Structure formats: structure tokens, C-alpha cells
């Protein structure tokens, strides 16, 4: 791939990362049904609050990983790295689809941790590796 060709990975990566961000923010504000789905039928208030806090922690961690990926992408560190772009597109699109089903079908809130592991942690960790490479060792691509 020569440099003069139009790089369509950049807008696609931006749109898919932002769609994952939108779905995470949506579930942040409409999480009641999901938390009720993972408690037993006669739940108490402390049980609800405990599960609520767990879920909030999960969503906040996912948002923090997404934020590091946005910082790396807009700060120019991994903007032109094609393998990271491809990996991020695949994982975030799978994550968006899974989270959309999560909201629409009122999945169990414990299933969120699986989605979190595969579609937020993995691209976040590779992004952190790239950021450390760029800032520490001055190695672009």
C-alpha cells in the first residue's frame, strides 16, 4: 500500500470507536432492566445497589479504555498504524453489536464482563503498548 492512496481506515476506525462509545453511554443511562435481569425475582435493595455498583464500575472501566484509545488515535500516536486500526475496528464492531443485543434483549448484567474483556480490554491494551512505544522509544509504526 503506497502512501498516496486514500487511507480509509481512519474514518472507519473513528466511526466504529464512536459507535462503541455511544452504546456504552446509552447503557450507562438505561441500565435498570439489565440489573433486574441478573437478580432473583424477589430482590432486596442492597442486592440491587451492589449489582448496580458492580455494573457501573464495569462500564466506567470500559469508558476509560475507550478514552485511552481515543487519546492515542487523535493524538497522532496510532493514527497511521494499520494493524492496530484493523484490530480496533474488528473488536469494537463486535463489541457494539454485542452491547446492542445486551440493551435490546435485557441480557444478564454478568455477561457484560465477557463483552468487556473481549472488546474493551484487548484493543485498549494494544493501544497502551503503541502509546508507550511512541512516547518512550520514538518508534512510529
Amino acid at each position, binding site marked *: 500500500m503506497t502512501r498516496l492512496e486514500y487511507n480509509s481506515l481512519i474514518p472507519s476506525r*473513528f466511526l466504529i470507536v464512536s459507535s462503541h462509545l455511544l*452504546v456504552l*453511554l*446509552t*447503557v450507562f443511562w438505561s441500565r435498570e432492566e439489565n440489573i433486574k435481569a441478573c437478580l432473583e425475582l424477589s430482590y432486596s435493595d442492597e442486592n440491587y445497589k451492589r449489582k448496580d455498583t458492580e455494573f457501573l464500575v464495569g462500564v466506567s472501566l470500559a469508558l476509560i479504555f475507550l478514552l485511552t484509545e481515543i487519546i492515542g488515535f487523535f493524538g497522532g500516536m496510532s493514527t497511521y498504524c494499520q494493524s492496530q486500526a484493523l484490530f480496533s475496528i474488528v473488536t469494537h464492531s463486535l463489541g457494539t453489536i454485542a452491547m446492542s443485543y445486551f440493551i435490546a434483549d435485557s441480557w444478564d448484567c454478568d455477561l457484560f464482563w465477557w463483552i468487556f474483556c473481549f472488546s474493551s480490554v484487548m484493543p485498549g491494551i494494544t493501544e497502551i503498548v503503541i502509546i508507550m512505544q511512541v512516547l518512550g522509544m520514538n518508534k512510529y509504526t
Partner: protein
Amino acid sequence: METVRSAVDSITQTVFPGIQISGKVRTRSYIKSGGEVKSSLPLQMALYFNVYFSPVWFLTHICTLNVKYAVLSQLYKIVLVTVMVVVVIVEIPRLYLGYIGNLTEKVPELAGFWLLTLLLQFPLHALLLFNENTIILPLERAVDILMMTFIVFEIIAGYFAIKVIAHQQMTRFHQQMQHLEEFSLVDNQ
């Protein structure tokens, strides 16, 4: 009269950044205003991604408006439809003016883009984001937060872009005037 003049001077300086009417130009910026490209990279990036994000924003709002139209009050039915139409009509020339102004370093287009963003898009999106009477759905909240981030960033980056480009063009003009005076082509009493 001197204080009135300096007050008008400072107000003009604030409203139209980059213009210096009383001619206080620093000497070393004569050297810097050569062939350096002064387009703003942050502004260009924000505009580029805004162009890709705007259709997403618009489709989301059309869908959510369709979902909640029946339960809105009469006033907000009219208000929201008007806001949608105005935002679409303003967004397309706004982004076009921003591109042209930033890439070809033209101050009038950039100033038009900046004023459209600050005076039209910013209040309309603030209305959509903060007014609870329009029954804000969670997806709308998410999409509006992202759009508002773009607009605020464009306002800040656009202000500095206009300032830098206008200052460069003004020092270039002063340089040209100085060169013409040296060759006595301009009569300077």
C-alpha cells in the same frame, strides 16, 4: 478622546481577533510572516471527523424524534422539528466554510464558520442537550454529548486559527507597504 479611542480599539481587538488598528506590529513577526502555512491542524481534524459524524447524529435524532413524537407536548413538537430543520440547513455550509477557510487560509470564510458555530449551532445543540422537556432519550444524550464536544472544540480551535491567520496576513500587508515605501512608490508624508 484618547481613552474612548483606546476603549474602541480594545473592543475591536476582542471581537475581531487579529486586527490591530493602531499599528502596533512587532518587528520580529515581519520575518516570520513569510511562506509559512498557518492552517490549523486541530481545527482541520475536528472538521474532518465532524463531516463523518454529522449524518450519524442526524439519523439518530430522526429515529428518536419518530419514537417520542406522540408523547411530546404541542410546543416541543413544533420546536424540535424546527430545530432539526435549522441544524441541517446550517450544518452543511458551516462545514464547507470551515474547510475552505482553513485550507486556503481565508479569514472571511473562517469568520463565517466561527460565527455560525458559536451563534447558531452551539445554542441549538445546548437546547437539545440540556432541556429536559424534550424527553431526552439515553441514546440522544450520548449522541448530543459527542456532537457538543465537536462544536466546543471547533469554537476554541477556530478562534485561535482566525487570530493566527489574520495576524499573518496583516503583517504581510505591512511588509508590502514598507517595501513600497523603500522604493518611494508610495508617497509617505
